[in-house]
């Protein structure tokens, strides 16, 4: 159980970092919506996990936060990528690509024997 959650949290962190890289500073709600949209609404972001994940990333120094004003003139807390965060994103993205590549080789039917 704990392992699954970790994997999920790990991927969530990657998604958050990637979202912030793509869109620049963004608030929690925006991050959640963007992830959901990008996944083609296949993922439902559990906010109970999102906010602790944001806090964790901030504690690790990968993102920083500041209060700002949204498009609708609403006060919101904006998160943005730090330099350490960019590095981390590159590293994690590479690792993730590797993982998926390996898994894809395993899962692709018939290729091994050929």
């Amino acid at each position: 159980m704990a392992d699954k959650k970790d994997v999920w949290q790990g991927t969530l962190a990657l998604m958050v970092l990637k979202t912030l890289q793509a869109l620049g500073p963004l608030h929690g709600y925006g991050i959640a919506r963007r992830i959901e949209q990008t996944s083609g609404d296949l993922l439902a972001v559990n906010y109970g996990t999102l906010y602790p994940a944001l806090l964790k990333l901030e504690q690790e120094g990968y993102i920083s936060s500041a209060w700002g004003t949204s498009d609708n003139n609403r006060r919101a807390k904006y998160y943005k990528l730090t330099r350490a965060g960019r590095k981390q994103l590159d590293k994690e993205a590479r690792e993730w690509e590797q993982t998926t590549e390996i898994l894809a080789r395993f899962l692709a039917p018939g290729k091994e024997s050929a």
Partner: protein
Amino acid sequence: MSLARKWLRRLGETLGRDRRERELAAEMESHLAMHIEDNLRAGMNAQEARRQALIKLGGLEQTKELVRESRGLPMLEVLVHDLRYGARMLAKNPGFTFVATLTLALGIAANATIFSFVSAVMLKRPPVAEPDQLAVVSSISPVSSWSVNLNPFSAPNFFAWKKQSRTFADMAAADPYASASLTGDGDPERVSAMRATANYFSVLGVSAQLGRTFADGEDRDGRDHEVILSHDLWERRFAADSGIVGKTILLNSAPYQVIGVMPAQFLLRSFPAQIWIPLVLHESQQSAAARENRNLFIFARLGPGVTIPEANAEFQRLAHAAELNFPDTEKGWGATVLTLQDHLIREFNAGPAIILLTSTVGFVLLIACANIAGLLLARATGRGKEIAVRIAMGAGRLRMVRQLLTEALLLAALGGAAGLILTFWGTCLLKSALSFNEEVRGLDLNVDVRVLGFTAGISLLAAIVFGLVPALKSGTSEVSTILKNASAKASAGRRQNRLRSVLVTAEIALAVVLLTGTGLLITGLIEGFSKGLGFDQKHLLTASLSLSDSHYPDGPKQTAFYRQLLANLENLPGAESSAISTVLPSGGYEEVSFRLKGQENLPPGERSKARYIVVSPTFFDTAKIPLIRGRVFSKLDGPGIRRTAVVSEVFARRFFPKEDPLGRQVMIDTGGDSGAQWREVIGIVGNVKSWPLQTSDDPEIYENYLQQPAGEMAVLVRTKGSPESMAPRLRQAVWSIDKEQPVARVMSIEDRIGEQTAGDRLFGSMLGIFAALAVTLSAVGLYGLVAFTTGLRTQEIGIRMTLGADKYRVLRLVLGDGMKLALTGIAVGMIAALPMRRILEGIIPDFRVDGSWILPLMAAVIGMVALFACYIPARRATRVDPMAALRYE
């Protein structure tokens, strides 16, 4: 590196908690608002937009709690939070907090105080260098009449073994039982002295505070007139004169040069000494008499790498060899090697008292813990809803268990702190009570790091004992049931109450066991105290005299002194009669072996033994010991005339079971020429107890001082008025004969007996206090439970009363419920307490109390107390107003 930064950041987050909390709330709020706006744009109506957004967010408070837990240092923060919360809860219930703290404080203080005593006796190390390496060699007597079988050695053994031993680096001998008359400025005084070989202090590894200790060779003839003073004597007698070293003092009228003063902390409990003088031993003395003169303890320093068991094995071999070489004197005598600390602990002989006291206070603490666990369970019932709400709001169950445990710890900390204050008071009290002899005065009793650690440890242990059960219990309760059943108070309570009932039953059972045990012990003491000692204690003044060898070298000189003293005392106004004796009535057991006609050739080890007292003819009259048959000594039974002896009833019955003892002959092993003379038994007198609390009588044999002179005598004066008022005249009567003769321990015999029994009385009163505490605590526990359940049943009682139940029925109902628990507890306790007497007999060697009536009596006492504890809430229940009770929710 990044990990450290992360933790640093989290530590920073623990500060400014409130600001962060507001920010989190604002962030959630803005999130929600944006979501609602989007939903509105998507065409939902306002209500639906809000509802959907809330569902999506998935429990606002739970999200907040999740964030809270990963923010800052959760462990630290949660702990601080729990502590704050716990403190608030305790402050909100001052009554509960007070009762629980007081209960716990009493239990902890009882344990910590007893521990301070145990620590002083067993854990404090003697004030010598490397105490683990310092051993005391003692001999083991073949006939052990005393509970501690650690005896001194003879000089020939010391010399032989010092040569043969390979396990010790160095060995010193010391005679701890010497004494000397200190004269000069002020009244002559008898001081206790230790005679020691010159290497004694270097073996111990201690040095003088002022001056020096003995130098090599100062234990030889001609160089031995040197003395070292104890700190106490130096302060008391010499006004702490810093120039004392080099001065000369008079000991037994001979000049001794002061070479040093020992530091105040140099106290070896069972080797108390006010002065140390050199011990001169002559290796050439190897006679049987020298071998029988056992007065030396061997102090030895273990060689490098040698252990105590190795040394012990070696000395057992050496003692065995001595047995073979000198069977006449050494047969049956063994040797044992103990560290100095173990030796002192054994000599202190407080093992049984320590076992009994620690188990008693342990029971008290258990009862206290059961009480508090009960109180916490009761509160948990009331707090069920609060806890259920908190769990529903996102607090983990584990978190709740932790919260409750934190509260228990907080309570334990309060109880421990209050207990510590009581412990300071308790140890002061105990220390002032422990002043009745030199040995207990030497105890270093105080609240030190060990006692502090013990108090903290036992508080923690108590918290676990009383906190864990209620905590686990609340952690498992069903949230939905509690929340749904708003009025489930009584039924939810009942489940918790089953556990409380078990606790209270156990408490009462513990109290029965404890009360039975202490009851038996105290009864034993009371029986000992109330038994007649065999003589009249009222108006009897005593003093101890020890004539020095230099002034009174032989029997005739000693006899002349005492004859003159008795004549002086006879003429004193206010004195009815006076006498002397080597041992005071109930003043101790001085043993002698003897032979009857036909037993002349029995070897010493197989001869019968009796308590031996040399007295003046007036002794039996003065002490009011009844003459049963025959006659007592006369002033005319002088030396050279047919020798006589008086025996006690027990002696007559035991050694002359079938014949008339009067006129029979006894040979008493007094040593020297007189040992081979026959004495004729001329009278039989009543038995006198050897010790004040003795349960049995020893056979006794008396001799006339005119026929068997002695230098050391106790003086007895039967006074008309208060014995103390005669004290100055008694001293004057001695000093008018010899103004340099010390008169020691001038006090009434009642005071002497009081000193001897002070330890037993202290022990008895401590047991009494703890037993009373245990009973009170379990009564409070029972009362608390009955009052609480009755409170929960107010409505039910109201209904019963409306349906026609009268007051007596209600009274019976409540009383019945409480007493069911009490009687179960008493029954369990009685079964558990059945083997108590056997257990006590196993712990205390000479414990003999019938006491079969004690168990039922104590059960009845607890039954009465329980009845009272149940009666108060039962009375209250009968006053319930049915209408008010029915409306009450």
